[in-house]
């Protein structure tokens, strides 16, 4: 059995902790996620002594994933620590930066403020799930073409946010800078002011905003 597991070390608050992590090469079986006293989330072997565990199934990037969760685990930690989907980033972990933005049932959502326990039966798309094979999503292509990034840490959140924004514009959803909300129709044309307002939940500390706006503007033209 030993060869079914690999030893992984994570560092948290200066202490190094070892734990066993199941290698799920075939993607079979449930991943158990537990929270340490330090607050770190780890993928753990077998059943847990932790008092409050919950089994949920979440469809992630088109594939059903069975998760056995400490109830405290956020969707972000489940993705990153449990499923090795490290595209979604942990910036502030308090809903203030947008780096963790994913799509839940098609809507942009902060995965750091979402309990994984509340995602049973939901469909989650992360930045890893946007491309079709080698073919990048149009928003990804535009971010590359317009250099909509510098360090890249906020980029997965920016891209997921922009993907949802395109749908919101098609729906005719208003924003705070939309003139008269009583007369807005479908297929809203996004001005730069509209793009800035609608992307304001995604902070970029490098200040790549002009190029992010240019990328979003370009996607809308297509």
């Amino acid at each position, binding site marked *: 059995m030993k060869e079914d597991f690999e030893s992984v070390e994570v560092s948290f608050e200066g202490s190094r902790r070892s734990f066993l992590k199941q290698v799920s090469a075939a993607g079979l079986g449930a991943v158990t996620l537990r929270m340490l006293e330090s607050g770190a989330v780890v993928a753990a072997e077998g059943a847990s002594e932790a008092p409050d565990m919950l089994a949920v199934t979440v469809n992630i990037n088109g594939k059903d994933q069975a998760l056995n969760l400490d109830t405290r685990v956020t969707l972000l930690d489940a993705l990153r620590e449990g499923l090795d989907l490290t595209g979604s980033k942990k910036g502030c972990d308090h*809903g203030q930066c947008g780096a963790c933005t994913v799509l839940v049932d098609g809507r*942009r959502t*902060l995965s750091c403020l979402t*309990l994984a326990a*509340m995602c049973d039966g939901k469909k989650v798309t992360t930045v890893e799930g946007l491309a079709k094979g080698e073919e990048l999503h149009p928003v990804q292509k535009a971010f590359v073409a317009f250099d909509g990034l510098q360090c890249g840490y906020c980029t997965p959140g920016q891209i997921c946010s922009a993907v949802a924004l395109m749908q919101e514009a098609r729906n005719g959803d208003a924003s*705070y800078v939309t003139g008269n*909300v009583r007369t807005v129709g479908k297929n809203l044309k996004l001005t730069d002011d509209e793009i800035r307002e609608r992307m304001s939940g995604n902070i970029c500390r490098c200040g790549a905003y002009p190029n992010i706006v240019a990328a979003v503007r370009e996607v809308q033209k297509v």
Partner: protein
Amino acid sequence: MRPFSFSRAANADDAVRLGADAKFIAGGTNLLDLMKEGIETPEKLVDITRLPMTTVSAIRGGGVSIGALARNSDTANHPLIRQGYPLLTQAILAGASAQIRNMATNGGNLMQRTRCAYFYDIAMPCNKRAPNTGCSAKEGLNRHHAVLGWSAACVATHPSDMCVALAALDAVVKVRGANGAERSIPFNDFHRLPGDNPERDNNLAPGELITSIELPKSPFAAKSYYLKVRDRASYAFALVSVAAALETDKAGRILQARVALGGVAHKPWRAVEAEKALTGKKAGEAVFKEAAEAAMKEARALEHNGFKIDLGKRAIVRALIRAAGPDGK
């Protein structure tokens, strides 16, 4: 975060039964953050997001009922709200970010807690978080704090934009108690001033669940505006916000006015004195200035927030000008 048990309620009866000794969770955008900080430490969470309280629908008498579990973004963009209550649409869209509005529910918006930095810092005294420990903000950094209705015990402000519009629009909050009993709370009686009990944000009884928010038929759809003033252009809490609504006759005389303020008090602040100053007058900047003076007459500044009094007056005037429209009629 402390461990907690987690259950899902199937209907409102189920929820109030499970919720007797638990916290309800829906959007989680505020509660989960507070749990991460160790400010809220529930032993049990009840997920209420699967309850059938997500619709926005017309009610008898020409009003609208908004489900407590409808998401903020869906509420803001619902045709009944956009057409009949554009002030509410604007206020919701002025708050938070698109992601958070997608997650946050209407009931949860009413339940969100202050963003006072001392309330969030568990190393500091705070009467709201830990009763009778003192208020760190009153003599501390209080630029963001209240200028109206504060007490020696607490100078925190209510953070919601949506609630400022609901206060102006005379909303009614429908709630269900643990015994299944339902009651209605007029919006301006829902949130509390701090007094000696700032730990209580609102007048809900323990275990009560918000089921819907009702808006009466509104004559204000054509002339209303929500103005939010903040430290950056978007995605920040209000320093001052104003929900302004006017009903005028053909000559431009104000038949009815509504003015409510955000960012200035422990609750969404209905500026009744400003409304009185407007009623019966011809809409115009001079009258709006009188109303602004009336609204801020009782304001008292702390060390760092005196600017909010002048800012509030100017914001009221500007919001009323925008509400009145280009011809003021």
